[in-house]
């Protein structure tokens, strides 16, 4: 099993979710994060002070999938999240040793 971690632009969240579901992914977990990279944040102004915000809002999706599904899922994310502009984000893949569905006690791919 693999853990796919994708960092994408917030307004792309729904499209990416739909693409993953279409690719057979049944569950995923989302967090709101702030990203630092090539894309730079906005400048904030207040009463003479000006502050370059270093971070840009992003969302992080995490989905654990079967090894066989991995390539298809990554492809799906890529297709759905791309705008071609800077800051589109990244996908990382990590190995997962075990998985468990709390409700039923199933483990391995059955838990996904």
């Amino acid at each position, binding site marked *: 099993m693999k853990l796919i971690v994708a960092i994408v632009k917030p307004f792309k969240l729904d499209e990416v979710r739909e693409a993953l579901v279409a690719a057979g992914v049944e569950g995923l977990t989302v967090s709101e994060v702030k990203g630092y990279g090539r894309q730079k944040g906005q400048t*904030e*102004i*207040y*009463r*003479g*002070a*000006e*502050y370059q*915000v270093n971070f840009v809002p992003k969302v992080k999706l995490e989905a654990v999938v079967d090894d066989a599904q991995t390539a298809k899922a990554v492809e799906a994310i890529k297709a759905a999240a791309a705008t071609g502009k800077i800051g589109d984000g990244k996908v990382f893949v990590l190995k997962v040793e075990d998985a468990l569905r709390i409700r039923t006690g199933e483990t391995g791919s059955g838990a996904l």
Partner: protein
Amino acid sequence: MNIMRFKPLAGLLLAATLAGAPLAAAYAQDAAPAAAAAPAADAAAAAAPAAEPAAEEPVAFKTDTGDTAWMLTSTALVLLMTIPGLALFYGGMVRRKNVIGTVAQSFVMTCLVTMTWFLVQYSIAFGTNADAGMNKYWGGMGNAMFKMITMDQSYSIAGATPTIPEYVFSMYQLTFAIITPALICGAFAERMKFSALCLFTVLWSVLVYGPIAHWVWGGGFLGGMGVLDFAGGTVVHINAGVAGLVCALVLGKRKGFGTENMAPNNLVYTMIGASLLWVGWFGFNAGSAVGSNALAGVAMMNTQVATAFAALAWMLVEWIERKKPSMLGLASGAVAGLVAVTPASGFVNPTGAAIIGLVAGVGCYASAVWMKKLLKYDDSLDAFGVHGVGGLIGALLTGIFADASINALGKSHSILTQAYGCVFTIAWSGVLTFIILMICKLTTGLRMDEEAEVEGMDLALHGEALHE
């Protein structure tokens, strides 16, 4: 503590005090004739609180229910300015970890000043000292706990027709006494100990606000000199602004000032606060007519016009300088206009008010943005930058734009006389605030320790947090 830091401050205050003394003597001679010249007409009477010494004796009177209704309403409006108005205006501007601690300051000050007002402050400000010589300087303790107020008595002002009960007068004035120290909080935001704040409030109310209010409105030595101050530009705004500057210098900068992002946590709160200040200010300025009449009407109109022009002026300058007009700028400009029109509201016509607003909008922008940056002090929410500078602008321009067809009392206006009133206030407020801060430093301590400042006032001082 590096005492050197205060050198320029000390110099300024000393100079002001010295300059004031001979001026006082010079003016004292003209005071009586000036007052005598004031026509006993309606307009004069209504405007008198700002310009005339109070009569020493409470008077029998016939209540005017309409005047009284407007003063009861104005009282509610001015209290609304502090809680929740000012609390939100400031609370929205600090960082998230300090929101509760900041709004708690306005709230506890409302309680503390009510207490001191009842116990001694009303007596000091509006009492009549048995020792007539001393009465020039403070009202004494004769009216402590309101013991001289009766139900069939009006408090009045020399030459004015008394139409409202004294309890109403005292209650109305109390709301002014509350907001003045609360304004100072902007200067030392995000770093003062709560215990220090409480002690400071009590001492400052009794030793600074009480006497100054007596000098100007309560029968003291400044009132009769012809200084025009319709609704408290000097007593309230210059006073609070100068005290704020002293506090900012004595307490020092916030940790991270200039390097960390200290952007306002919630400008919606600030917008609500600015709006309630605006609406409440109708009670402040139009209420200072102490009656329900055309003078109240024109004061309200002047307030509205000056505020709008000041907000638009601030917005324009910011739009040009920073490329974007901010909500914080609009709110700040509006407050600058409200402050500046305060002394002028019952003396000028709307065109004068518009000009005062324009000057205040640009002037306060310059002080809060450019001057503060230059001089590098941390007047965190611009108590001095807006209230001090805006108050000065308003006080001086009243001397230029006063229009006798609006208010006969404004006939002999002069920018010099106006400057004179400012000097005394600056001196007394500056010196006494410094002394009071030193007392706090030695007893409660002044500033939160560094760890508490990093954690934030909410948890460190109050054990509370926003759970949004």
